[in-house]
């Protein structure tokens, strides 16, 4: 079964990435620490008025996620490049999309864990009141994370191997994430309020379309960019 072999490879890569990250510990901890630090700085810069902070909460959490996410994405390829492991990885049989899928899975778990902590910190620091419809908020978060990780992993596969990787990844990634940022923040604000105009639904659909479109596009494009 070719797909069973492929799925085994995807799992092996994801497991390796997560094991490496969790063992290195310094990686996950510092990325989360950065996210929370950014939140604190934003709170200091935008506060201390409680209402202003509550209004800024959604934006602050997403910005903290974006900036610390960039570190996570570069790291996921860094580990391959530092020791020359990428060359060995490219030598294995099987389709290249399994490498992308494995990295994606690893990054998804990593970023979800990170976002959970950042969101919790955001709720506390910015005084957010959780509404009754909070599951919908989780849905928005999930769709946003998927879009972020898809494009982040894709661009990192190139940026991490170029000169000036620290600036190239955000430069490539952030403009592309504008729809995600707008959709996630606007929908979240609507859901945190009373969503009187049912805005959130349209934005959630936009996020879903975005995720599907770029899921297909990045998988197709990855084959072409992973070769040295």
């Amino acid at each position: 079964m070719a797909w069973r072999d492929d799925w085994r490879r995807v799992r092996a890569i994801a497991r390796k990435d997560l094991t490496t990250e969790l063992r290195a510990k310094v990686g996950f901890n510092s990325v989360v620490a950065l996210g929370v630090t950014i939140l604190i700085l934003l709170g200091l810069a935008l506060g201390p008025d409680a209402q202003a902070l509550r209004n800024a909460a959604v934006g602050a959490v997403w910005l903290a996620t974006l900036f610390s996410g960039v570190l996570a994405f570069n790291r996921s390829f860094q580990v391959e490049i530092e020791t020359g492991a990428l060359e060995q990885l490219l030598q294995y049989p099987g389709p290249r999309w399994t490498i992308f899928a494995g990295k994606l899975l690893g990054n998804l778990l990593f970023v979800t864990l990170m976002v959970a902590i950042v969101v919790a910190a955001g709720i506390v620091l910015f005084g957010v009141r959780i509404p009754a419809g909070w599951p919908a908020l989780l849905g928005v978060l999930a769709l946003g994370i998927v879009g972020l990780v898809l494009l982040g992993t894709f661009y990192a596969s190139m940026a991490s191997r170029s000169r000036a990787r620290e600036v190239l990844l955000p430069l490539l990634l952030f403009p592309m994430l504008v729809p995600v940022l707008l959709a996630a923040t606007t929908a979240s604000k609507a859901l945190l309020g009373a969503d009187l105009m049912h805005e959130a639904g349209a934005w959630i659909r936009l996020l879903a379309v975005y995720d599907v479109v770029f899921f297909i596009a990045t998988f197709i494009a990855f084959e072409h960019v992973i070769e040295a």
Partner: protein
Amino acid sequence: MFNAQPDRALDVSGLGKRFGARWVLRGVSLDVRRGEAVGLLGPNGSGKSTVLRIVATLLRPNAGAAAVNGFDVVREAGGVRGQVGYLAHSPGLYDDLTARENLWFAADMLGSPHAAAEATLERVGLAHVAGDRVRGFSAGMQRRLALARLILRNPRVLLLDEPYSNLDADGVALMNSVIAGILRSGGAALVALHELAPARAMLKRTCTLVAGRIEAPSPERASRDQPVPIPGTD
């Protein structure tokens, strides 16, 4: 159109490669027949690693062509990868995984059972540190682990880049026994070296890379098909 000779394990013709404006390879031609090991000599920076990496499908040549057991490295890269085993100069291991985990990962990617990985660890003499993280390994131990991964691949053509560096006498003997085993079963090897001594017994002949080209052999042996004997082995 490059017509690779199918009886040659490795056929390289007119290979050119540049990095930016610097031409590293300017028309490299060599061949390796089944059952033989050929040494690729040359000073540091002469492009030996580049030749190996092009054959391993990690780099695309700017000119020329190469084929492994009939598979063209550019157009049939997947087929080539199934044939070759590339031992790079840097081991390419995951420092935060244990030796065992590194090999199990390789086994998963190759579709081999984990038992094969365990057996290979034994063979390279790392069974006693199988559960230790690679970060703590010496350079010699890392090379042995990389060799273990190479064995797992079960390659037909070995592409070895300075394989003896950091190995003690036992390690050298191990490397040679692995190479010999592959040659005996009809495989082949291209070994990049800057020093001939450890491989003297293994190599059938050598080519030397100078200024991006294979240095022409002495006038008595005008054709590159004539073996250049290694001093002391005649």
